[in-house]
């Protein structure tokens, strides 16, 4: 069966390799000091999409991201790994969005794409770590959601069966299509970029990139539609400006504090048998283990 698959992806600062310059004095992230990367769990989601496509030849994988112009980099990255089409959702009106406003804009873009069988996204992004966008998009689209999925076991005309990671085990759930699934990091790693696709899709560009000075592959883009990354703004998705960006975001950041663990909160044990026994007893007492 030919599936229409949408993958929601996000470009994030690489918080896994944080150096000394990573934070500004006011406690916000210094994005300039951190390389921008493909959110790791979104890569797991992309792999689930590509696996579905492998099993269902003729399926189509569309990747969608919201962000500034440079977020087109991760769309190309998705094309290198096997995605068929890429859409960049970008507009000043989207700036400053919290998870609710982001979910609204993404859900409107998904509606614009039109018919879909499954929307996949990473469980959460490594910058905000909220895990809210996937569930909120599902809610706004009015489709069921299965979160924290580590494997999509099967998918037929009307149902998907997926394994969810839960505390102390795995839950197997069955859900009707269309459906939104969030995928977590223990799912299969994403396949590598493919050399042939890199040589072709490095030319892929948004209309903004295409019109920039020095763009060398205008002719190729005109001849090969797959190289054209779509660029949508607020109007294109028929969005309500008051529900987007800063104005659509009920979350207001008042203040950011650095939390530093105080030395007095720690206790020092030696490697002596007595100390180790005391440690285990204490951990059992306060139910950290057992």
């Amino acid at each position, binding site marked *: 069966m030919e599936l229409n698959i949408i993958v929601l992806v996000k470009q994030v600062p690489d918080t896994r390799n944080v150096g000394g310059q990573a934070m500004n004095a006011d406690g916000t992230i210094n994005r300039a000091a951190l390389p921008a990367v493909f959110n790791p769990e979104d890569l797991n989601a992309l792999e689930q999409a590509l696996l579905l496509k492998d099993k269902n030849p003729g399926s189509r994988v569309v990747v969608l991201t919201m962000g500034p112009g440079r977020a087109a980099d991760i769309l190309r990255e998705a094309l290198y790994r096997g995605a068929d089409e890429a859409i960049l959702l970008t507009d000043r009106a989207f700036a400053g969005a919290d998870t609710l406003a982001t979910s609204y804009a993404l859900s409107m873009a998904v509606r614009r794409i039109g018919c879909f069988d499954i929307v996949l996204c990473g469980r959460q992004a490594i910058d905000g770590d909220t895990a809210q966008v996937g569930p909120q998009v599902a809610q706004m689209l009015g489709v069921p959601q299965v979160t924290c999925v580590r494997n999509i076991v099967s998918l037929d005309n009307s149902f998907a069966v997926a394994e969810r990671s839960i505390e102390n085990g795995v839950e197997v759930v069955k859900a009707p299509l269309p459906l939104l699934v969030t995928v977590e990091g223990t799912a299969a790693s994403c*396949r*590598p*970029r*493919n*050399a*042939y*696709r*890199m*040589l*072709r899709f*490095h030319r892929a560009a948004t209309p903004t990139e295409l019109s920039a000075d020095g763009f*060398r*592959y205008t002719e*190729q883009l005109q001849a*090969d539609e797959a190289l054209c990354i779509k660029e949508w703004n607020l109007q294109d998705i028929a969005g309500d400006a008051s529900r987007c960006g800063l104005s659509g975001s009920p979350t207001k950041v008042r203040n950011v504090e650095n939390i530093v663990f105080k030395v007095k909160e720690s206790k020092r044990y030696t490697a002596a048998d007595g100390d180790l026994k005391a440690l285990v007893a204490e951990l059992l007492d306060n139910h950290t283990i057992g």
Partner: protein
Amino acid sequence: MNYYSENRELRHFLKHPLLKRIVEMKEAGYAQSGEYDYAPVDFDEAMYGYGQVLYLVGELCADVIAPNAVRVECEGPSVADGRVVYAPATTENFDIFGKAGLMGISLPRRFGGLNFPTAIFTMIQELVCRADAAFGNIWGLQDCAATIYNFGSDAQRERYLPMVCAGATMSMDLTEPDAGSDLQSVRLKASYSEEDGCWYLDGVKRFITNGDSDIHLVLARSEEGSVDGRGLSLFICEKSCGKVRTRRIEDKMGIHGSPTCEVVFDHAPAELCGSRKMGLIKYVMSLMNGARLGIATQSVAIAQAAYSEALGYARSRRQFGKAIIELPPVYGMVGTMKARLDAARSLLYETARNVDMSYQFAELARVRTLTPEERAESKLFSKKADALTPLIKGMGSEIANMNAYDAVQVHGGSGYMKDYLCERLYRDARITSIYEGTTQLQVVAAIRYATSGYYGELLGEYLAEPVPASLLSLHARVESMVGRYMVTLEQVQMLGSQEALDFLARRIYEMAAYCIMAALLLRDAAMDEELFASSLFRFVSLAESEIVAHAVYIENFDNKLLNQYK
């Protein structure tokens, strides 16, 4: 980590001016960009593409192949029912490389390949072998496809080359129990059946790397009653015929992940590749030249890995209140490893570029008749490639061993334990100076270029290139090394004895190699002084002392002394 982007020395080799010409010829005026959506439109895009793919390989090697190498070695391949079962980690590696599209790198696009030049394939192979020399072997055997491309029929190309691009593995089935270095005595029998209109192979091959491959290139005796190389032909035999089995896998010192097989052909149907009787004298010689460049690449990769391990350990290990890299005997050793590595790499890529140019002319000659000027130029490149290949195979592999030895030494007692990578490198390095022709055989292949004066000519050409004033004193030292080499060569020739020449050939070979590596490193330092000047200084100092040692040995030599060794 990324083995490519973090290696400035390797990246330097994308900048050589000859590469532009190679790419122009390989892409034949960028005419394929209309036909294949991944073909470059111009030189800049081709270079951009190579850089992207090298970056990808550098990442996969650091993130997947190198971490898997421990499992590849521990699990190792096994044999069941005549078939080789790779270690699970090897299968993972193949799966990732297959998905990344890295299986037909230098083959033309019409067969599904990436159409990359040899110089770029060599860089990719260096990255792979640095991560895991054993995986580098079985993956690198894709290069055997060049033999089918060069000498096979159209039907054979159309059948086998797309298979290789899709991930089919290959092997070169040459060695037999009684035919190792002396391939003329190959006995595996090829007989033609008029009835079936096809050849059949019967016999046993030994020490076959990746001997349960999908596509075997087999050297066999097609001329009944013949006894020498002129009775041998080359055959293509597919695993899918079911008549080729692996009887056992050797238990080796190193490269455990690469199955070395005893292969039994039991009336296996095979296709003749090229013409009868040309198997050894033409095709295997060409196949071996390609394979020797491959082993030279593997050697440089191991030399790099050994240097990186030694440097990392010497910086972190503290003794006597300081990091051991601050101790003169240690920084002397590590700094010399780097100098040998850089010199070997300069020679490796000089060789690869000349091999490339000779391939490009051969390719052009398929399309149209070469002009007399082109024919002359083509000959020059082929000769250079033929003369440099045994130099880098022999010296590169010896340098891999030296660096691996020193890496263990820098680690001290810890280096003797299985806990550190240098121990595996030490074992893996050892085979490089043996397979695809021992160093001694490389000397045999190279010595004629010394005695004919060709290496001297080449050195003249390299040293005639301009260098910045800051490198003039090193240039002068290299010139005087060359002078000493020429004098010593003449002394050997004056001995007038073939036995003495054979006996001393290794020393002449090493003198020539040290001079050529120094001259090439000088040329690279002239292009990027900041990157190579210090290595050059160290290498020239080392090479001078090696050359003097050989010169003194030869000066004190007398034909009568040969008896002292018998």
